């Protein structure tokens, strides 16, 4: 995978924090660890650092590949690298696996020091604000007072927004991509069906499936199939699958018949094979709770008033999970406050997943915005 524009082989790092992290839920994590990766070089002034926040199923492996697994390319490798929109020749880029995740940071599969058993369902529900505080501790450890930019798509974009609100002096720019200022009832409804699929799987064992040597793969598979539908657009599904049938399809039965069924089942199986069901529950709950305007009388402009960052907000035309109108809510609140903001609406057939795709207009806008950031 010796791609010309890749950051090349990368190595994840682990950092342990002995200072407890207070959580929105009222409890605290006594001892916790984060797994992260960095690309590029931190300058002497430590003013060229960009934090990349991940979405529901993402992690710290954002760009490059692993020497022992060259096919394992970072999930946003098309965006990050030398000469790419998030240019590692210029910026020091940090990817981090959030608390509650299943890629090495402290999460439900980690041993609970109180019991000596995996946390499982007892792992505290973490919020976007909690993640921001945890990421800030990582910034402290790296000697980064203020990020040149915090960047994220979907749930990652929500973290960028929360950063700008919670720690205004530590974020110079926020790139909020394919996000929303809060979930709608419909968004929460989809998340709850996904959670119910997991919670009602007999192999879930109340979240303590690790000690039973099993995994609720059926529930997790259904959750992912449902979620995956919301990431795509109707147009794209029609173009890619339409009503095409499998060559070996039977009929008047309940087997795999239409191509879309085959595709979704494959995606569900693949995901259920590696993702942690408790993490899925936690991530969807963090989405549901995300509502930075709520402590400010449901006034998003009031919540954003204290932000000092410049903003680039990006949406995708066929995204119905977090539609362009939801991004405009963020833009309108910023304009109301007379804050620095640019907004691009990308014409894309890819639905919510558009933020992960390589699109010339999308990528050049991000590149142009970041080029104007002083380091």
């Amino acid at each position, binding site marked *: 995978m010796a791609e010309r524009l890749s950051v090349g082989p990368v190595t994840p790092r682990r950092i342990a924090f002995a200072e407890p992290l207070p959580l929105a839920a009222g409890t605290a994590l006594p001892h916790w660890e984060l797994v992260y990766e960095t690309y590029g070089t931190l300058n002497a002034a430590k003013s060229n650092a960009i934090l990349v926040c991940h979405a529901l199923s993402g992690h710290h492996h954002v760009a490059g590949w692993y020497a022992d697994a060259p096919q394992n390319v970072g999930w946003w490798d098309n965006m990050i690298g030398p000469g790419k929109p998030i240019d590692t020749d210029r910026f020091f880029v940090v990817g981090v696996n959030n608390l509650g995740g299943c890629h090495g940071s402290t999460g439900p599969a980690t041993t609970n020091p109180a019991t000596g058993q995996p946390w499982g369902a007892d792992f505290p529900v973490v919020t976007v604000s909690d993640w921001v505080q945890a990421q800030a501790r990582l910034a402290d450890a790296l000697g980064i007072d203020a990020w040149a930019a915090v960047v994220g798509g979907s749930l990652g974009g929500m973290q960028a927004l929360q950063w700008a609100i919670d720690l205004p002096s530590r974020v110079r720019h926020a790139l909020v991509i394919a996000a929303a200022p809060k979930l709608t009832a419909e968004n929460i409804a989809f998340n709850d069906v996904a959670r119910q699929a997991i919670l009602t799987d007999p192999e879930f064992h109340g979240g303590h499936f690790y000690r039973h040597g099993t995994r609720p793969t059926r529930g997790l598979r259904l959750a992912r199939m449902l979620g995956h539908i919301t990431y795509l657009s109707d147009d794209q599904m029609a173009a890619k699958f339409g009503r095409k049938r499998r060559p070996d399809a039977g009929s008047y039965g309940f087997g795999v018949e239409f191509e879309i069924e085959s595709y979704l089942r494959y995606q569900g199986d693949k995901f259920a094979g590696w993702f942690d069901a408790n993490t899925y529950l936690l991530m969807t709950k963090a989405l549901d709770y995300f509502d930075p305007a709520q402590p400010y009388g449901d006034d998003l402009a009031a919540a954003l008033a204290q932000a000092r960052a410049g903003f*680039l907000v990006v949406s995708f035309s066929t995204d119905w999970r977090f539609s362009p109108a939801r991004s*405009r*809510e963020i*833009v*309108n609140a910023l*304009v*109301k406050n*007379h804050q*620095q*903001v*640019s*907004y*691009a*609406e990308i*014409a894309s057939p890819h639905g919510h997943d558009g933020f992960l795709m390589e699109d010339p*207009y999308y990528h*050049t*806008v991000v590149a*142009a*915005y970041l*080029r*104007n950031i002083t380091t």
Partner: protein
Amino acid sequence: MTHPLKRPDFDVIAGWMKPGERVLDLGCGEGELLMLLAARGLRGWGIERDPGHVLAAVENGINVIQSNLEAGLAGFEDDAFDHVVLSRTLQTMRHTQQILAEMLRVGREAVVSFPNFAYWKNRMAVLNGRMPVSEDLPYQWYDTPNVRFFTMLDFESLCAEMGIVIRDRQVLDERGALITEEPNFLGSLAVYRIGRGG
């Protein structure tokens, strides 16, 4: 929309604004006017529909919001801006009255510039049986983005009908020189500063 390199109307527009004021530029293109105003100490935001122009405006460090003006200015608060500018764009819009009303809702005052269809050369062209093509109307009839063709008198009559007050008016010829005599005959481009009546 093309944006000719020479924009003498920008000097007129900038002359009506003071440092520290907030400006919304509708159809801001690559952000030329907002860059000029930023250099003079104003704070600006632009609205632009064309992706190429949005990209250029981002490159120019302008606050640009990708949006279609025909959808109005919903989402922007009343009195959010000191000035709302619509330069050389009104003639390309279908919802003429709606955008004028919206500009004076979100802005304390508005600036509108447009090619004057009654400019003598345009009249000559029509008298000679052809649609006018000039510095300020640089399109053929079959490729023009303009959908409304109107004169200074037409615009002033619409303002009166809508209760809009004309606070200032500058008229330029094709070379960008100020016209004072017979503006609706000698003026190729009209620039108005307007406000709410009453």
